[in-house]
């Protein structure tokens, strides 16, 4: 579409699911104002949460426990941290690991000594332990051995660590699992979802990681002091500017991949919030000088941080090369005062849609929301799903309507030749060995009998074929009575009636599927940065890099903290 000749729409529509819900686009999403980390820090700042550390009982070997409390207007939450002395041969990020450098639980309130004693018998065991409804999450982290040693030895020697080494790794510890929502006996999400501070998605997990980052900084400083004292020296204090560059790392593999498919209603809410935000900004009739200035300043700072984004993986490298070229084009476009005149943001977006790679388009979409907190931040309240995912099937729906719904929303799936071995090359299953999702080769392994329902396109196409010969006036209830095997797929079709962004419109078992697209999409909603795929099925990211620490929140209420060269620095 030629933006110069296109008629100006009376109303800017939402981008249609056919455009948004493609894996190539979802796999190019970036963090935004509506990402869960940023929602959390906005609330902690706006409500002036207080933080303290009532316990820090760690010995010279780095073993012990600590408690970090966050006090809000109505309730307090505490991260109970256990630090361990982990022999190198036991350091593994895999789900089957049995020991970690540090283990954590987020406690609902402020724990007593008895609570801590109980947690000390369970949290270090992770999956082999049990927690109670007083705990909201359980997690663990391993050190980046290389950076940890560099920082401890530098500080112990009385000088600051090297900034390039800090940037090359980006974190001192990486979480290898954060379990919430009832796992290992913790409180169910439903039990806490009505609390304002936990209503947005994943706020428990984000708070846990945020407090973990504060603990890790204190722990590395403690270990530096211990080492310096042994040598009869005085350790340097880690420069706050360097400390802020450090995030919490995370290596995410296939375990996370099925989430978006398994939570269609929730996924719809996330996408709908972001798309509505884009629609609102595109619909603005004009841009004020201040908005333009702020956008341009953020553009430069986001561009600078993107320039530092490195990935060793060929897939991401290619995307980055295209993104860099896109940013040059954008800079050129923006330098010609293109934001003046009518509907400037819509013009900018439509220009991007024509000229930029998908990675560049989505980078811009996230950035376009930045100057407009007053306009879009309220959408955060709509991102949680309050209805159970497993809504009742509408048994009264006539099959003629079901057919039409499938033809309208799964047209892409009906076009695929599912008999082609390449179309159904993969199988999602849970391995007995690791008890987490895996992706197998259907035609080379005997895993099909264990297939998880993670191929909605194929399953709905099978359902559609099964409707052959049924009278259109017959109901879903009658059909399911004879074909209960189609219940799962049929429910999804009905969910899409209410939630058009609930389904990824791509083949999730194709030979050329890139699971990292699923991971990247979810992690972008978390607010992760520095996506660095290590293969087609796992990705390393960083969380809370550049965020103010709890003790800095009150003084540094910068909503743009995520951009390292952002305003107010």
């Amino acid at each position, binding site marked *: 579409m030629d933006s110069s000749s296109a008629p100006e729409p009376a109303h800017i529509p939402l981008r249609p699911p056919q455009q948004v819900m493609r894996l190539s686009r979802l796999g190019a999403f970036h963090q935004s104002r509506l990402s869960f980390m940023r929602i959390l820090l906005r609330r902690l700042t706006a409500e002036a949460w207080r933080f303290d550390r009532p316990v820090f009982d760690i010995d010279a070997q780095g073993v012990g426990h600590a408690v970090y409390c966050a006090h809000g207007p109505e309730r307090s939450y505490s991260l109970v941290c256990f630090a361990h002395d982990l022999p190198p041969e036991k350091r593994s990020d895999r789900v089957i690991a049995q020991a970690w450098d540090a283990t954590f639980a987020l406690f609902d309130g402020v724990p007593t000594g008895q609570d801590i004693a109980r947690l000390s018998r369970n949290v270090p065991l992770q999956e082999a332990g049990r927690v109670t409804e007083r705990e909201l999450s359980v997690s663990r982290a391993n050190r980046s051995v290389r950076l940890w040693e560099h920082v401890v030895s530098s500080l112990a020697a009385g000088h600051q660590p090297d900034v390039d080494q800090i940037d090359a790794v980006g974190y001192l510890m990486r979480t290898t699992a954060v379990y919430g929502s009832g796992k*290992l006996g913790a409180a169910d999400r439903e039990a806490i979802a009505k609390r304002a501070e936990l209503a947005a998605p994943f706020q428990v997990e984000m708070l846990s990681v945020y407090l973990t980052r504060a603990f890790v900084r204190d722990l590395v400083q403690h270990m530096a002091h211990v080492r310096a004292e042994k040598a009869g020296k005085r350790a340097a204090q880690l420069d706050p500017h360097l400390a802020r560059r450090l995030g919490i790392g995370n290596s995410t593999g296939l375990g996370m991949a099925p989430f978006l498919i398994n939570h269609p209603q929730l996924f719809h809410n996330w996408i709908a919030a972001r798309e509505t935000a884009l629609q609102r900004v595109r619909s603005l009739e004009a841009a004020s000088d201040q908005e333009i200035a702020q956008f341009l300043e953020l553009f430069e700072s986001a561009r600078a941080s993107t320039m530092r984004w490195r990935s060793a993986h060929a897939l991401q490298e290619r995307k980055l090369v295209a993104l860099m070229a896109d940013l040059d084009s954008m800079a050129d476009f923006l330098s010609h005062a293109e934001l003046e005149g009518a509907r400037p943001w819509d013009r900018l977006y439509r220009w991007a849609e024509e000229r930029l790679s998908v990675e560049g388009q989505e980078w811009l979409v996230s950035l376009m929301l930045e100057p407009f907190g007053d306009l879009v931040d309220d959408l955060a309240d709509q991102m949680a799903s309050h209805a*159970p995912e*497993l809504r*009742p099937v509408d048994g009264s729906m006539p099959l003629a309507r079901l057919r039409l719904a499938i033809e309208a929303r799964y047209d892409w799936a009906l076009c695929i030749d599912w008999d082609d071995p390449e179309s159904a090359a993969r199988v999602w299953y*849970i391995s007995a060995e690791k008890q987490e999702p895996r992706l197998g080769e259907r035609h080379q392994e005997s895993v099909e009998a264990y297939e998880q329902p993670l191929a909605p396109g194929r399953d709905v196409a099978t359902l559609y074929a099964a409707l052959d010969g049924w009278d259109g006036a017959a109901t879903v209830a*009658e059909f399911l009575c*004879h074909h209960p095997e189609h*219940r*799962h797929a049929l429910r999804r079709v009905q969910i899409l009636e209410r939630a058009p962004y609930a389904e990824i419109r791509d083949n999730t078992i194709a030979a050329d599927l890139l699971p990292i697209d699923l991971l990247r999409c979810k992690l972008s909603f978390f607010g992760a940065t520095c996506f660095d795929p290590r293969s087609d099925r796992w990705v390393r990211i960083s969380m809370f890099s550049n965020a103010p620490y709890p003790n800095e929140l009150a003084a540094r209420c910068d909503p743009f903290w995520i951009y390292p060269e952002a305003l107010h620095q």
Partner: protein
Amino acid sequence: MNLSLNELEALCRRAAVGAGLHWGLAEEAGKAARWLAEFDLPGAQALLRYLETLSGGSVLRAGPVSLEAPWRVEAGRLCPLIAGPALCDSAERLAKSGGLEMENVCFPVLVLPHAAATAEILGECVSLDWQALHAVTDGRCLSLASKQTDLLSEQAVSLTCRLGGRLGRHRARHRRACVSADCFDRLSALAHRSFAPATAQSRMLGAGSGCDEGNQ
């Protein structure tokens, strides 16, 4: 054992898959066990005992022949994990007829959560009767008059579902689930059947995430 409701639901869903149920029905079974657990009723136990009676694929032949009353199977016993969701799917039909009967239902307590879902859809109370048991629910609340033995009946020769009824004393609703260690272990064993055993082939083909940075 004290479990979160999400844990119980996931365990029961996986156990149902492990016992050979299709996903859509297994999801319903997990949700049903969760609802029963909230009212401190032995849903997980009933589910376990029913699943242990199944042998490969038998459940698919145990749905009602038609939705015309009474609901029955051609031969054998009616599966509560099909009949329950079918009841909820037939909410509109129930609104018109005012009631329906099911014959020879296995573990009828597993139908109760679906009567509750039906009540929520219709915005009216639904009553369920089998043997000496009488239950009324509006979906959120439940009143129940029964003996423990009826709750865990292996079979109801006749189960009646009626629109209407008056809620008596509300049964307390809990936020946690209690199951015996034996029940937990046996459900876990069934759930385990849904996990693929590792093979040299799958390891070689790199199905795993491989996301381990070890001592880097």
